[in-house]
């Protein structure tokens, strides 16, 4: 016993020592996903988080838009089949009170069309204190979680103060943190006691293992002689008690909860947003990623059918945002907001009304490396996609998606 105590104390001490240096941050894991899939799955646009700091029981809203990519890879299950709007947090640190896409509640699964635009809003209530990197997520059946941008949200307060109630259609207000559990515990304990009593009855015959094995082997086909009349009586009593309890429990439950409904499931449809026709169209001529310079070079053919010259203000791919500081001022919300405020260089723009011309973009930032987008060169399907945000002279914004093959530049061939 002393040894046990000593060992425990030593281990707990070592663990405590080690853990005293663990930072209390809740990161995420989307960097493991293949970059070209991240670029060709869902584009998240204008994602806003209502607050970065809140108390237990307070509300945080996440809203914005998303667009499933036209370049969704054919070899993975499509978002047009079955999908579900979700949230990426480690465990239920928040409870989800509402989630909607284009106003439709996203309680059930749905599907989204490629190339269409969707508005979303998710309402969360803080449940556990901590600092969380909260992501939007769309789970796609057979494909996995498509992770959107993340924001650090800090929750403070007392976890015991968390409240979560609901009112049933029978008018009863229930506390979802413990509703029904007293009942579950009571019945589980009762059955456990029954099972244990049966086990203990046979244990009273100890020693049992060797003597009974010996007797049963010796008696062979007559081993039933080992069963005593008392055993049979106990068998009868336990059987009768078990059947009575099952029947009684069922009748009791029917009396107490006469109105119940089956679990609800089934898909729901969401109509996409109506999008005005964009006057800007883009054709990818060439995409090259230069590894030594962490530089992505895009050569595009841009046509402007509008009435005002357009320029590129932002290039977004795989949740990374490269901003042309001459057009836009976007600053990262926190240390992990994947915004490079001045990392987009544009040559050949603006494009005048009615003009079609070649535009070259350079998106240069260490984010390519830190977010492991450089592993796109290790993909068996080196096709990329991204979203370009054009702005005209009147401040109007036009989103255009492009996609196509990517050629890596290892810096070993002089061009």
């Amino acid at each position, binding site marked *: 016993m002393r040894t046990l105590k000593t060992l425990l104390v030593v281990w707990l001490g070592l663990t405590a020592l080690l853990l005293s240096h663990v930072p209390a941050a809740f990161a995420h894991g989307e960097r493991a996903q293949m970059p070209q899939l991240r670029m060709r799955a869902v584009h998240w646009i204008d994602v806003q988080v209502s607050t970065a700091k809140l108390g237990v029981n307070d509300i945080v809203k996440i809203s914005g838009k998303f667009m499933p990519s036209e370049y969704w890879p054919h070899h993975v299950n499509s978002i047009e089949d079955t999908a*579900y709007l979700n949230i990426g947090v480690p465990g*239920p640190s928040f409870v989800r009170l509402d989630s909607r896409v284009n106003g439709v*509640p996203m309680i059930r699964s749905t599907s989204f069309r490629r190339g269409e635009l969707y508005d979303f809003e998710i309402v969360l209530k803080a449940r556990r204190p901590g600092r969380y990197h909260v992501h939007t997520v769309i789970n796609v059946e057979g494909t996995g979680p498509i992770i959107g941008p993340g924001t650090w949200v800090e929750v403070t307060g007392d976890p015991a103060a968390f409240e979560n109630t609901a009112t*049933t259609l029978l008018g009863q207000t229930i506390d979802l943190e413990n509703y029904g559990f007293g009942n579950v515990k009571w019945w589980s304990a009762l059955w*456990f006691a029954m*099972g244990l009593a049966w086990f203990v009855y046979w244990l009273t015959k100890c*020693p049992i293992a*060797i003597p009974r094995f010996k007797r049963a082997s010796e008696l062979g086909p007559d081993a039933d002689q080992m069963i005593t009349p008392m055993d049979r009586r106990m068998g009868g009593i336990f059987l009768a008690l078990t059947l009575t309890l099952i029947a009684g429990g069922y009748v009791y439950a029917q009396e107490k909860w006469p109105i119940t409904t089956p*679990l609800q499931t089934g898909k729901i449809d969401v109509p996409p947003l109506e999008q005005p026709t964009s006057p800007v169209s883009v054709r990818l001529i060439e995409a090259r990623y230069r590894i030594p310079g962490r530089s992505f070079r895009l050569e595009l053919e841009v046509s402007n059918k509008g009435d005002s010259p357009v320029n590129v203000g932002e290039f977004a791919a795989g949740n990374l945002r490269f901003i042309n500081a001459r057009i836009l001022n976007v600053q990262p919300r926190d240390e992990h907001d994947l915004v490079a405020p001045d990392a987009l260089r544009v040559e050949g723009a603006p494009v005048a009304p009615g003009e079609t011309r070649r535009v070259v973009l350079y998106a240069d930032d260490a984010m390519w490396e830190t977010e492991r987008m450089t592993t796109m060169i290790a993909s068996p399907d080196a096709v990329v996609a991204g979203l370009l945000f054009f702005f005209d002279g009147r401040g109007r914004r036009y989103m255009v998606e492009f996609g196509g093959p990517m050629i890596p530049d290892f810096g070993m061939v002089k061009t």
Partner: protein
Amino acid sequence: MKVDKMPLPPAQTELRATEVGLTSAAEQHRAYVQADLLIIPLIVMLFMGIFSFHFALLVGDWDYWVDWRDRRWWPLVTPLALTVLPGVFGYLLWEKLRLPLGASLTILCLTLAAWISRYLNFHLFADFPMNFVWPSTYIGLGLIIDCLLLLTRSFFWTGLFGGFAFGLLVYPLNWPLLAPFQVPVELHGTMLTVADLMGYEYIRTAIPEYVRIIEESTLRTFGEAVTPLTAVFAGFLNIMNYWFWLWIGYLGSKAIWIRKIV
């Protein structure tokens, strides 16, 4: 370590060395008790481990989450997977020890392991409220099998009646625990059960709604007979299921010696 040593009369020493192990009935009793003290906890631990592993990987999700316990799949999948250890070890304990404990003890062990794991892993570790992740109760089913085996002393009749009851009664046995979670609520114009509501509110990032394998409506669910229909079907299947696993238990308890592996 200490080893009890005692001198023996020369005549007995020789006999003992070649033929038998112990000198007195008291010593034999002590050996029997020691064997029990080793074998019973060993069996309990193995049942807890094997059953928990087996059940987690075959039924798991239906038993983890209260919003998975539907009328169509849960009462069908559960008895089919749950009968395996009662069959295998029921054969061993009855045939070799004449103990009608195979079903109730294995399920008792599963239940204990499930409560420990649900509390440690799903409640403390993943932080779900216990009322969302409680394990169902199946001990009553084990008792039916064991008591019938004791009373009929026949695997055939135990399979026929016990195996059937085992499949039939999963739902009614659990109904007093489950019913309150299937009371309807409304959320944003959608009707849900309390269980669905909890599944929606308590976020599971990697378990989206569509992953649930639960009853979907069909044009041929006549007369709202889903639960009894599933229960009876599960019962019939389970008769053969119980007999099959008894046979596996018979194979497993064979003391086979071989000269070498290949």
